[in-house]
């Protein structure tokens, strides 16, 4: 589960820190206490920035870093596809062995495949992704999202 890629992201997070954004959310993983505050800035249909602050285990922190690396600069539709693929992988209970197609979409995020075997940790891995989804919906004016704090 502790792939080098994950530990790298944990030790050297991408794009950490809070910068200007169109929407901000704060999410908590209630069963473990991981937290994230995340902002999304959109430029028309493109994700101009995802900035965040948080604390928690290596999985939740590395996942936020991977998210930043993967999604910033992408069009929203494309980003949604990445998010859905990641969700699918994480909900697979270790049963999906990522193929090339998936690897192309998820890049570093395929390293999380092993995490999907541990239900308690899946929530850590998904925390920033759920926050991103909520913040984006909010930035697009689709309601305020579910804030868990």
């Amino acid at each position, binding site marked *: 589960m502790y792939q080098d890629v994950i530990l790298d992201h944990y030790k050297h997070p991408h794009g950490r820190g809070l910068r200007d954004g169109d929407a901000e959310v704060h999410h*908590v993983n*209630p*069963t*473990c206490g991981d937290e994230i505050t995340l902002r999304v800035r959109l430029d028309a249909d493109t994700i101009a920035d995802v900035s965040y602050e948080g604390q928690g285990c290596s999985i939740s922190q590395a996942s936020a870093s991977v998210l930043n690396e993967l999604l910033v600069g992408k069009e929203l539709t494309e980003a949604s596809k990445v998010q859905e693929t990641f969700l699918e992988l994480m909900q697979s209970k270790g049963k999906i062995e990522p193929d090339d197609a998936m690897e192309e979409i998820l890049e570093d995020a395929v390293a999380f495949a092993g995490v999907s075997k*541990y*239900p*308690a*940790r899946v929530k850590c891995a998904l925390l920033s992704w759920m926050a991103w989804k909520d913040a984006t919906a909010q930035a697009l004016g689709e309601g305020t999202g579910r804030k*868990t*704090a």
Partner: protein
Amino acid sequence: MTPLPGLLDTEAIRKDFPVLDRVVHDCKRLVYLDNAATSQKPRQMLDALNAYCERHNSNVHRGVHVLAEEATALYEGARDKVAAFINAPSRDEVIFTKNASESLNLVANMLGWADEPYRVDHETEIVITEIEHHSNIVPWQLLSQRTGAKLKWFGLTDEGRLDLSNLEEIITPKTKIVSFVLVSNILGTVNPVEAIVRRAQEAGALVLIDASQAAPHMVLDVQALQADFVAFTGHKMCAPTSIGLLWGRQELLEDLPPFLGGGEMIETVSMHSSTYAPAPHKFEAVTPPIAQAVGLGAAVDYLSAIGMERIEAHEHAITEYAVRRFQEVPDLRIIGPTTAEDRGAAISFTLGDIHPHDVGQVLDGQGIAVRWTPLRAPSLPAVRNSSDHASVVLSVLHAG
């Protein structure tokens, strides 16, 4: 003796219940007819319970170790099974309690502490019936005493059916909650859900159905019932004691306040205040009945494998036979419906003026386990007008 007419292979089913091998009182083989009080436990459930306690036991939700993952998967898996068994729109609507009594008290307490429009207070009314189990009377008496709300109830006709002739006077726009039993544990009557629910909806009242005696015996479909809450209990449906259930509509579970406070039902806690986890966890202060839920999951699998439609049809056939034959016994009087129509398999009777305590004891001497119940409160018309004060209740489960 001619075999009882039925549709199930009762000899095969008997073998699933180890207790039925027992011989009591000098070589009488046990005949267990006290299913209205609690059911016996099939081997399949016992094995699942034992495997859990012996191999997978752990607290749930919070651990980061193998056992915690396994226990959580088994516990939440049981919730999925129960949700499917009752056709719940969402698994998150299934709350594990300790028994049906707690489920009923939970709703009463929620409504006492709720905000408008659900709040029960001195300007509002609570409706129950005269044929409720004590566990569906006392919580409402307490709520009524504590809030000043008025407690009202439906009476019974001479045949032991609910008297709905004054439906509109009893359920009014002041009514906040109508709580009634689906199948009576005393008379065996199946109550007319639709008429009551329709009137309650018209009046804007919530409906709670006590399905404790229904869940083990018939298809229970919470969507078809159109109630807001349905309570029932594990130990009457082949599961262990100390697990009860409350199904509630999701919006309500979100809006209503919690009952027991504690670990896992919270999202964040500071010394000053807390926020609550979403349902069902909001209503499950740790540690929940983990082993018992696993047992219940296995019990639900067991019942489903036989098939609830088949169980229902089988019991109907037996009940038809039993009420007919019972009436051939001199001095035996059935309390409650004397035909199998809209009635479950619990049959109450009196035998001349022999006190039921004595009837029960004599049956026990023959190895036949029944229960007896004092019938004075709530008073039944059938009893009020006679010198009988109690009756023997026997309830035939599928495995009887």
